[in-house]
């Protein structure tokens, strides 16, 4: 495989799959916190 294809594969797969895993992890954490009643209803997270 040429180097540009390798770089593009890492970037695109990292962004899409990595993004999905990060978002899923965050949703799991937030949901867990909501279930435990520990969360602020207006979290000060920046927009992604």
């Amino acid at each position, binding site marked *: 495989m040429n180097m540009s294809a390798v770089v593009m*594969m890492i970037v695109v797969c990292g962004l899409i799959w990595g993004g999905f895993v990060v978002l899923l992890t965050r*949703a799991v954490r937030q949901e867990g916190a909501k279930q435990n009643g520990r969360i602020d*209803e207006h*979290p000060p*997270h920046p927009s992604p």
Partner: protein
Amino acid sequence: MCGRCVRSRLPRADQEQGGDSLKSSEQFGSRWGLVLATLGMAVGTGNIWRFPRVAATNGGGSFLVAWVVFLLLWSVPLMMVEFSFGKSARRGPVRAFADLVSRRSAWMGGWVALCAICIMFYYSVVAGWCLRYLYASLTGELTRTPSSAFWDGYAGSWTALGTHFIALGLGVSVVWFGVKGIERVAKVLIPTLFLLVIALAVRAVTLPGASAGLEFLFTPHWGDLANPGIWIQALTQNAWDTGAGWGLILSYAVYMKAREDVPLNSFLIGFGNNSVSLLAGIMVLCTVFAINPGAQSQIVGATNEGLTFIWMPRLFEAMPGGPFFMVLFFLALAFAALTSLISMLELGTRVLVDRGAPRRRALLWVGAAALLLGAPSALSTAFLGNQDWVWGVGLMLSGLFFALGARRFGLDRLRREVINAPGADLQIGRWWSFVIGVVVPVEAVVLILWWLVKEAAGNRLADVLNPLKPFSTGTVLLQWAVLLVALLAANRWLAGGAEEEA
């Protein structure tokens, strides 16, 4: 009551009641039920048979750049609009537009609903094809019969009508049990679908010679980014395979809890859907390059049906352990098709329920209509192609209507009061208002014009405007005009009930 009064009432009404104006049996039991059902809606056959082909024929790596851009500039922002409309109005597309935008805009909701319903008529046929091929791969028919002969003997036959009926029956039997039935099925099918696609992709990349497929998919040709066609194809792919702007997410959002998150779920579904597309691209192209590298241009240049139902069985036949992986492939395809079909049936049912019909009777009416009006597509692939062309492009108009509806409602207000409402796990900034207010409408108009002009290029005007030609601009304009005139004429009736309840 004026539109402004209605607008000021709806989101607040939910909040005052602690939000849950729906009975718990009419709500998704958990966030994961909602996310999995919506992912099931989004992940369809388009991810598995269209994405690999479109990515491969539009510059590979450079196409992927544009594809990621439009995930963020079309799909995810429109998903937020749909979630917000469904969550606020607690009604299907027609009544949501009447209640939230204005009574005079009910026809826009009607367009969104009918466009998705017209797609359902032939999508059920496609789901039937997937079931037939799953059965044929299980019984070994596909390995005994040449795949092109099998397809020619099956597509457009009475058997295809039978499988259309079976697919509809399966879909109706799930929606029959309401949102709980949809949730239960999604919780099984979607994780299984993810595992199947991952298993198939892993198998494909471990085939000797598979790296050529990866190279073909990921090598960027930066000069291609100057070609508007690449950007249009990337936008179209996002619009079609995420299901944003179809009204289907809105129909599921009706059943979400009032304090359920909108923004993080929208990102999650958008990225989850595109993750499946990427896996499917890797799976298909690695298989093609590993098994039959000499025919790669012929294979990726085939139609969706040609790639999936003629070439893939041939490739699996030649692969070590191929019959087993062929079963997994068609199982994944069948799951993807059925979960999308279920969401379309739910949308149609929701529209009738909003008109006062009992839910199960409404579902039976929708199922019967789909059986009858899908029959021509089952018996003629040319008719199916025509409907796919007409309503596929019509979806861009649906996306435009959502953006215009959100503008009319008030973009900042929708963002503050619904998207960033209590329960939101992310706070969305003003960029969203700009994307929905300016970028999405421009994208939709450019896309519609491009599709129509592309079709017209190089053809005589008489042929272009001939409504009897299955893929002409004329057939699109005629069918759109009939639907639009009917919807505008029926607007008062469509909006009926909104004022009384308000």
